[in-house]
């Protein structure tokens, strides 16, 4: 594998979407090529930064409560409808 092929495959490699065969080839190239290794490490750390920082945000607790209530309501409605059905 040359640098161009490695750079092309890099994102799929980071995404763990390459075939086992291609993974072996990319790894072998990264061991030999400092330039590609630096790029790989940088891109991987950037991906991690975006993921970790953005995952700090969660749903508000009030939304969780609201949905729990709403689903309980839906469940009751569904049960009532099913109980009514045999009498028809």
């Amino acid at each position, binding site marked *: 594998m040359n640098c161009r092929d490695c*750079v092309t495959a890099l*994102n*799929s490699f980071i*995404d*763990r*979407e390459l075939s086992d065969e291609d993974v072996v080839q990319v790894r072998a190239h990264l061991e030999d090529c*400092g*330039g590609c*290794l*630096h*790029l790989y*490490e*940088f*891109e991987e*750390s*950037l*991906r991690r*930064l*975006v*993921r970790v*920082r*953005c*995952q*700090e*945000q*969660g*749903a*508000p607790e009030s*939304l*969780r409560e*609201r*949905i*729990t209530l*709403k*689903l309980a309501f*839906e*469940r009751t409605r*569904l*049960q009532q409808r*099913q*109980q009514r*059905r*045999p009498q028809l």
Partner: protein
Amino acid sequence: MNAEPAPQADTSESAHQEAAATRARFEEEALKHLDPLYRTALRMTRNPSDAEDLVQDALVRAFRFYDRFEPGTNFRAWLFKILTNTYINSYRRKQGRPPESSLEDTEEFFLYNQLSDDGEGVTDVEGTVLDRLGADSIQRAIDQLPPQFRTTVQLSDVEGLSYAEVAEATGVAKGTVMSRLFRGRRLLQRALWDQAQAAGFTSGSKVHSPSTDGHEGAENGVVARSRGGTR
């Protein structure tokens, strides 16, 4: 489309109990994905109150359609697909046409090239200006992507869905996911750089007006001059 579950011969007592247990399981499983669903809804609507309504509507729909979910297939991707459809059907129209993104397209690996300016490759965002970007700035950068790229990047890079899962969630082919990611990440790098610039983190770089003194030197110069003025 008919939202009613097909009325099979499942009206016996045990069938009712089974249905009730299934619905209870839905709630438990679905709420595990509440944070990712909310974050994604927030990127779609770019508005906390709409995002909350969107997630609630999507989960109610998912609850009603739960008997159509095939056990053993991917529940998370299925939920995201309902979120996407709910957004397209009810919210996108309300929000009107999104403003055209003014984001400049750029070369691949733009940030690496920016930060490796002196010929030495940078190997980690830690210690660079990017590391100083908080969650708000990064989310703002994602929000600047055109919608189809925004959702794809959010699902892949923040929520960690596979290409196949993103394809199911957004209703496109896997190849389309890959090309959206390719372009979306390129745009995101530009948007992140813009955020770093807006926060004043990137002075002295080649994008900022080049100064031979560097930022600190210039500041000292100003201080020295003002002192001179008060004399």
